[in-house]
């Protein structure tokens, strides 16, 4: 019924690390929630369902907890259902998560032969006999990755996460997305194991695409929680890059490299849990005090909210993959496994992997830009609104939640060998090789890349060296005993005020302009000019709105196509009876043909012939001659 192998335990550990600091934060946060009992029932139900997913060894139980997880999180988004945007977001989330659920259900029904009450091992035997394993693979990635928020199923994240209470967004982004990654691990390792090379390439491409799309849309956001939600898309993409490399290496028979890549992916899963929870908590604390999600209304909060500011800075450094943070270490490992592609003999594959290197590096660069924006606009400078001016530090419970989570972030950096040992156990279950001793060749201080002539990095030594240098510099500076005077900011003679300060929109301006082919921004500019002088104006307003490309093309496009088709059907409804019977005849024909193709034999010639017959009969019987 339940399973406690190393994979389950690792993810159980992840849930524990993500949940315990969140409990403190949530109790601090719940003081302002009106429907407390409602909130707490769903909150704990959500946590229990996530634990249930990672320990169940029964397809039915897995599906039950999975659905419970979706439903409780959906209800948690609706904790404060007064606003219309909250209701819309919840509706969208409900739809998207059940779209994934349908695919998951299909997958489960196929691999269990209709009887869901079996465990993963028996599912493996049934899956082995199924004629179209790639179909199973696609059902699986649709099902799990729509929950994880991978392009093109990522559209719900920037809506659902901002509307949920901050403790819940931290859980959803930090832990729930990882449960989807667990599903991917569990199914690929235990049910669909020997996979072809192409599956790994699909995962790698999806990962590279998600990481770029996530960070680019994060840059254009000025709702702080939507920005963080977009970064979740990016980080899930980075995890999938590692995961895809692991699959590619495994399909090529390079067991050690594959284990290294999977360990890197798992490590990034943990790291993303830690810093993304911390970021959502700090952002929630800012939101709690200023009562707005709009970054343009923040500013100067570092003076009034020091604990929040420091924890946010720590998490920003970590998510931007700056050394020696834990985010850097896992990205370094993923990077090293991409570079190990040197030992692939397949030249076409070898040449295309540098594009993933490029995507990862560009993502890193843009993430730095994005977090300079998020941190600088929120916490530095002067306050841009009255709300920000009167903000105070959040309550003690929320602070302790954030501080606990920063301990998790720091310990992921300091105790890397311990975590890698855990992850090594997981990959050992798949390949049977332990690479812990090849990663930590000489002691626990430095992490070695597994490939020949690979790189080495040592987080502890880097951190110590940086600290020592900073202290020496600081000591030298202090010993100079220079006088300090406090005066106004120097802005070349211009006045420094909140209105001349840089805004979040302005900060991302150059990048937005460079990527305007992707963003297609809709600009809105309004100014009241004085006496007809074009350059002199009393007030000016500049707004820019970006509609995400995927939402516009895939989702709205699908909607308009459905509308058009239903209009055509509506027009058909006014025909005479003979046409109705013709439609029924065609429907039967297509069902028969379809059944023959999928259930019996598959040949392109037959399919072409049948499609032609169908088209002719539709043309003659239904559409008829033009009048």
């Amino acid at each position, binding site marked *: 019924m339940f399973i406690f192998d190393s994979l389950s335990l690792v993810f159980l550990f992840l849930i524990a690390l993500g949940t315990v600091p969140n409990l403190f934060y949530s109790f601090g946060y719940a003081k302002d929630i009106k429907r407390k009992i409602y909130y707490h029932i769903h909150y704990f139900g959500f946590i229990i369902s996530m634990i249930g997913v990672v320990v169940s060894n029964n397809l039915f139980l897995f599906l039950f907890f999975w659905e419970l997880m979706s439903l409780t999180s959906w209800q948690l988004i609706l904790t404060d259902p007064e606003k219309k945007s909250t209701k819309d977001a919840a509706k969208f989330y409900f739809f998207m998560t059940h779209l994934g659920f349908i695919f998951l259900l299909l997958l489960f029904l196929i691999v269990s032969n209709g009887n869901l009450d079996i465990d993963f091992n028996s599912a493996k035997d049934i899956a082995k006999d199924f004629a179209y394993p790639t179909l199973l693979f696609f059902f699986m990635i649709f099902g799990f990755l729509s929950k994880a928020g991978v392009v093109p199923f990522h559209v719900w994240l920037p809506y659902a996460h901002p509307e949920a209470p901050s403790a819940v967004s931290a859980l959803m982004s930090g832990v729930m997305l990882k449960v989807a990654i667990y599903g991917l691990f569990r199914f690929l390792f235990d049910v669909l194991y020997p996979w072809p090379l192409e599956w790994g390439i699909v995962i790698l491409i999806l990962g590279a695409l998600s990481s770029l799309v996530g960070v680019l849309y994060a840059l254009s956001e000025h709702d702080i929680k939507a920005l963080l939600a977009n970064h979740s898309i990016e980080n899930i993409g980075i995890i999938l890059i590692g995961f895809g490399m692991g699959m590619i290496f495994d399909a090529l028979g390079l067991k050690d490299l594959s284990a290294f890549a999977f360990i890197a992916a798992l490590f990034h899963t943990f790291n993303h849990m830690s810093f993304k929870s911390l970021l959502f908590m700090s952002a929630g604390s800012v939101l709690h005090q200023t009562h707005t999600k709009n970054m343009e209304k923040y500013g100067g909060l570092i003076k009034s909210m020091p604990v929040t500011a420091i924890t946010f800075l720590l998490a920003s450094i970590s998510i931007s993959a700056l050394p020696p943070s834990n985010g850097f270490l896992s*990205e370094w490992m993923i990077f090293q496994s991409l570079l190990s592609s040197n030992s692939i003999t397949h030249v076409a594959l*070898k*040449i295309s992997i540098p594009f993933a290197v490029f995507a990862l590096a560009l993502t890193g660069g843009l993430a730095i*830009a994005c977090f300079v924006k998020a941190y600088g606009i929120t916490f530095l400078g002067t306050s841009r609104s009255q709300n920000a001016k009167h903000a105070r530090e959040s309550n003690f419970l929320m602070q302790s939640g954030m501080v606990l989570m920063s301990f998790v972030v720091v310990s992921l950096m300091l105790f890397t060998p311990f975590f890698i040992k855990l992850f090594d156990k997981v990959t050992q279950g798949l390949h049977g090789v332990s690479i812990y001793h090849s990663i930590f060749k000489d002691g626990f201080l430095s992490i070695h890349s597994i490939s020949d002539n690979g790189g080495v990095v040592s987080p502890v030594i880097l951190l110590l060296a940086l600290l020592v*240098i900073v202290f020496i510099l600081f000591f030298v500076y202090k010993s100079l005993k220079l006088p300090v005077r406090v005066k106004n900011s120097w802005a070349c003679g211009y006045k420094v005020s909140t209105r*001349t300060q840089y805004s979040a929109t302005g900060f991302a301006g150059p990048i937005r302009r460079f990527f305007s082919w992707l963003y297609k921004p809709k600009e809105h500019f309004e100014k009241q000019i004085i006496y007809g002088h074009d350059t002199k104006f009393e007030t000016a307003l500049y707004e820019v709105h970006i509609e995400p490309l995927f939402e516009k093309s895939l989702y709205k496009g699908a909607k308009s196509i459905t509308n058009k088709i239903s209009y055509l059907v509506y027009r058909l409804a006014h025909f005479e009876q003979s046409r109705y019977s013709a439609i029924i005849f065609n429907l039967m024909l297509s069902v028969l043909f379809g059944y023959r193709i999928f259930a019996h034999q598959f040949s392109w010639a037959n399919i072409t012939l049948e499609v032609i017959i169908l088209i002719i009969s539709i043309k003659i019987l239904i559409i008829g001659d033009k009048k």
Partner: protein
Amino acid sequence: MSFVYYIFSIIFLVLLSPLVLSFIKSFKMRLLYKKPASLFQGYRNFAKLFSKEIILSKEASTITKIAPFLVLSPLVLILFFLPPIFSGSFYIGFVDAFTITGLLALSTFFLMLLGLDGGNSFGGIGSSREAFISSLSEPAMILTVFTISLMANNLGIAKAAINLNNHFPFTHMASFTFATISFFILLLCETGRIPIDNPETHLELTMVHEAMILDLSGAYLGIIEMASSIKFIIFASMFASLFMPFGLGLNPFLSLAVFIAKIFMIALAVAFVETNMAKLRLFKVPNLLGIAIVFAFLSLISFYVLGGNA
């Protein structure tokens, strides 16, 4: 002895860095038929800045007080990881492109925060532009250094430089040339030289780096200036060791002389580029960086197609 060489080369690089920047400046002035500034102007500036009073902005927070140290210290740390100058010298051979780029990015991250801390619009301009440029230069940097380390058959920068010096990969001359072009563009970009940023301007239309530090004064400004000169020497030294891989096997004095000659050759090239080119418009900068990225890709692909080392 080898450790003495190691410590000596780090101190030597730190001491050399103001001289190189002053040399570029005075050589540029000579090319423009101006009376050149003294070669020791850099040292004089530092002496002056470190004895002046510091003026802090009213809006400035703790970030202004700690950021200058965090801008300088990652760059100082990189100095410890650079390829050796002398043949018998101790070196830390394993540090790879991703770590070096990460340390550079850490320094830039705090510099950009510093720009936003004063609350004035100039700092914002500078940070925003720097964020734009550095985010696009990071992939080029990683790809280029990755290619050169593949050619040298070792991902560690210092080890790669020694390998290149000992067995130069003549079969991969094309890849090597492409990587050199790409890295030279990156050198200009990362150190804020003319086609990308103008180090001497104080006009809001053109400045990037100077805008971020407009609000600083005294020792804090001195630390940031020191950081930018050390950044130049890091890039010059990486270019000299990785892309002009010769002269390491000679006796210590000769190899030091060869190294200094290489550094000043790079400085001369930068000065010529600066006097002969106009600063690019901000939105043309990605084109130049795009060239760097394309050359890095070309270099990698031609390396793989020609067989590689594996």
